[in-house]
């Protein structure tokens, strides 16, 4: 007989009736714990949008798990009325991998920050993406170490003056989206705390993606790095400094939607819409195009690499690819072994190939 473990039975017995789920509200996803972030911290809006998105996942609460590492954002699981684990610094992706591979029935979310995932846990972060484990990773990027009270992080811009870099940081910062694409991430997106509607949409997209979803969220740390993303979040500068990506739509931005991005071969350029260029000349966003996603990820340095031009920062889904997930691969191998290798006979295994009798 093929092995049917107590967990196989458990999953069948406890399967949620998805057609008759309770009508959750976002509030019902809030735990009974007091939220302890600093007043005005960007984490609050993100928590709220995650809670708001949860009822729309079409899942039972009991099947959702949040796993975090260490850092301000990593307190997150305590505030969600789901299953959760606040683990150790940088290791949430590895813990989530073990959980998801062994329990593919669960919806697993990783909450992490720029210190957690780009510094101490950068290896696990990259490996999770390359393996394409079907989990959702929300990277709260505030470009600073908040919990340890204000040291520069691997995402802090060069020259950042912080407690640990009184003369300005010398490190060249990580470009998290380029890093994710470099790790062969299959879903790479960006959102910001100050645009809750778009943020919620991106959270839902992360959930819908079958594979490892990496959503970077610009999050304001009011205490140690206030205004780090003001250029993109401020209503005045946002139209010219941020560009929202929509699959199949041309890249348009600007106060009066009067600017666009055109591709000259593989060289992007900002153009004014009007006499010379129309919408039809613009780069049309294709979430499935990895090369172009990489170009978009380079709209990061003040002037994109190799260009004199200044580009707006892209928000939305840069890249989404359908690829076999790691957990599916593992489980297919196990199912195949159970099907083809005959009975799981413990006695035969203990006996091995060669035995002898002592009378």
């Amino acid at each position, binding site marked *: 007989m093929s092995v049917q473990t107590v967990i196989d039975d458990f999953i069948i017995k406890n399967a949620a009736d998805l057609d008759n789920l309770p009508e959750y509200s976002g509030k019902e996803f809030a735990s009974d714990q007091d939220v302890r972030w600093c007043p005005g911290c960007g984490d609050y809006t993100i928590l709220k949008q995650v809670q708001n998105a949860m009822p729309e996942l079409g899942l039972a609460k*009991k099947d959702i798990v949040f796993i975090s590492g260490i850092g301000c954002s990593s307190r997150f699981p305590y505030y969600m009325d789901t299953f959760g684990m606040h683990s150790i610094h940088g290791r949430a992706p590895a813990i989530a991998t073990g959980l998801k591979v062994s329990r593919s029935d669960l919806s697993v979310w990783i909450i992490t920050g720029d210190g957690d995932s780009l510094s101490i846990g950068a290896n696990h972060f990259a490996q999770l993406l390359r393996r394409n484990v079907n989990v959702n990773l929300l990277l709260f990027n505030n470009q600073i170490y908040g919990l340890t009270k204000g040291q520069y992080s691997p995402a802090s811009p060069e020259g950042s003056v912080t407690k640990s870099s009184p003369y300005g940081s010398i490190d060249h910062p990580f470009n998290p989206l380029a890093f994710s694409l470099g790790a062969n991430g299959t879903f790479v997106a960006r959102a910001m705390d100050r645009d809750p509607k778009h943020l919620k949409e991106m959270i839902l997209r992360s959930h819908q993606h079958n594979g490892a979803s990496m959503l970077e969220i610009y999050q304001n740390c009011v205490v140690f790095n206030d205004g780090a993303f003001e250029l993109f979040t401020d209503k005045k500068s946002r139209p010219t400094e941020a560009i929202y990506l929509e699959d199949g739509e041309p890249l348009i931005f600007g106060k009066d939607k009067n600017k666009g991005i055109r591709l000259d071969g593989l060289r992007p350029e900002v153009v004014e819409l009007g006499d010379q260029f129309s919408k039809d000349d613009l780069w049309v966003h294709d979430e499935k195009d990895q090369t172009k996603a990489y170009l978009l990820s380079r709209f990061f340095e003040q002037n994109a690499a190799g260009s004199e031009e200044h580009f707006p920062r892209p928000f939305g889904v840069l890249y989404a690819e359908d690829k076999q997930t790691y957990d599916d691969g593992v489980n297919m191998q196990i199912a195949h072994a159970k099907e083809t290798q005959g009975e799981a006979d413990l006695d035969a295994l203990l006996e091995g190939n060669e*035995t002898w009798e002592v009378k």
Partner: protein
Amino acid sequence: MSIKDQVREEVTIRFAGDSGDGMQLTGSLFTNTTALQGNDLRTLPEFPAEIRAPQGTVAGVSSFQLKFGSNEVLTPGDECDVLVAMNSAALKANLSLLKKGGIIIANTAGFDKKNLSLARYPDGVNPLDDGSLDNYTLIRIDVNRLVKEALSEMDISYKDQERSKNMFVLGLLYWMYNRPMESTISFLEKKFGAKKPEIAEANVKVLKAGYFFGETTEIFSSRVTVKQADLESGTYRNITGNEAIVLGMVAAARKSNMPMFLGTYPITPASDVLHGLAKHKKFGITTFQAEDEIAAVASAIGASFGGSIGVTSSSGPGIALKGEAIGLAVMLELPLIVINVQRAGPSTGMPTKTEQADLMQAVYGRNGESPLVVVAPQSPADCFMAAFDAVRVALEHMIPVMLLSDGYIANGSEPWKFPKSNDLPQINVEFAKARSGDDLEPYKPYNRDERLVRKWAIPGTEGIEHRVGGLEKEDGTGNVSYDPDNHQKMTDIRRDKRNLVAENIPLQEIDQGTESGEVLVVGWGGTYGTIRTVVHQLRKEGMDVSHAHLRFINPFPKNFGEMLSKYDQVIVPEINDGQLVRLIRSEFMVPAKAVNKVKGRPFGVSELKEMIKAAIEEKVASES
């Protein structure tokens, strides 16, 4: 000249050659045949850490020692009766391990100018010719030439010829010790048969050539027979320690009907645990080769959180990296099995050499007060039950368990009277139950039973959604707490919970000797066979010495302290600089004496015997 038949109680053979000479395979094949003949046996493979160590050099020598006998065999032997030296470096590296008067079978082709110089013999010196081996029985055989002749009618490449020369030696030894060739022949046919029938044929030819060489030449005046050992009746197989861990894990998974998840990272000498478990998917076993040691243990914790048996395996350096995560598992109170196949340290140390120096690391090697359970197998076959017990305790007590094996028993092998699955105890696992209804009280994940064990509350269970974490938590609710009294309480609880495991393990028994007396020798782990043999000899000499061997070290069995108090002296031999001895001194206030060695090799019987005798006398001397 007629060839005499001699009966011997035990024989120790050491196969030594270049890493490329296939000595490990030769040794294993001889072992299998010998096991099938019904002898008791123990093996000691030793190989260089380098995968392709420089050919012909002393650093590149690989060897395999095997002792077999018609009585109980508990060690692979201090010195060997026969040394097979495939080249000059092999002779140089191993001569000191050959008994005076022992037999050297030297492949003369390995003693040409080039090989002698690679082995750093002085110019013009050949140990086979200079009389330096006069105290031994030297048998010179040009194996290379004889193999070439045996294969002269076959169209076989030079390389394949070279590769089969170990079979010649094996055949010769089969003749010398009266062993049948069938099991090796069928192994060769199975291994090469379908794809490379000509290689199988060549190897079998060479094996037989070696055997007939013994029969027809008259270099040996006698043949040796070692009769079947008087083992307990039953069905046996041969097994190494790492294989036994694998089977123990699978058996525990089946007897609990739980899925098992191994998160691991390759490391010598523990990788065979991964290789073994990776094959057993149909038993519900998932193996995950992680990006590093930390991810390995972290993934196992994730799996355990989800209701699988989380296992991670490594050796000392890897365990050091896992420390923080093991502490997390202690804090979360989740089951976790950490397998440490110890090797010589510190740092990278000597990866292929054995040591018992990670005991303190196992017991104390994490930040904060972080109690877990330590279980140590005592022999290759014993790894099975030790692994099974480790899983049982972890699941029944929701606690991390460290299984402390070592390189010596991991690679060594012995006959194993394997159990029937029906004879293994069932392991009972119960998950927290679902709850439903309005106005449920928040679920309390850290409510405990009388053994202080919390419920395994897994995701997917309705009404028990809850959060756990590495921060100190309030008992019961599991909410984050910085309350001073709560931290005291939780620290006490985690310690007491670990100590209560003592209620669920067997009492310590005396392996050999009396319930009280002059000297108790206390060992743990892989030193069992040697200590047992030594104590047996000392008792035969009329000394009042007993032996107790610990399997559970943390906590100690309940009666252990009282047991210690019944002897005038306690002596603790270990392959480290004194670790268990310190635990015993501090826990029981007993002036236990340390007997230590750290040379990357197990104790030899006569060596340990002298050391124990000296330790006993030292005490007497200091008292007078």
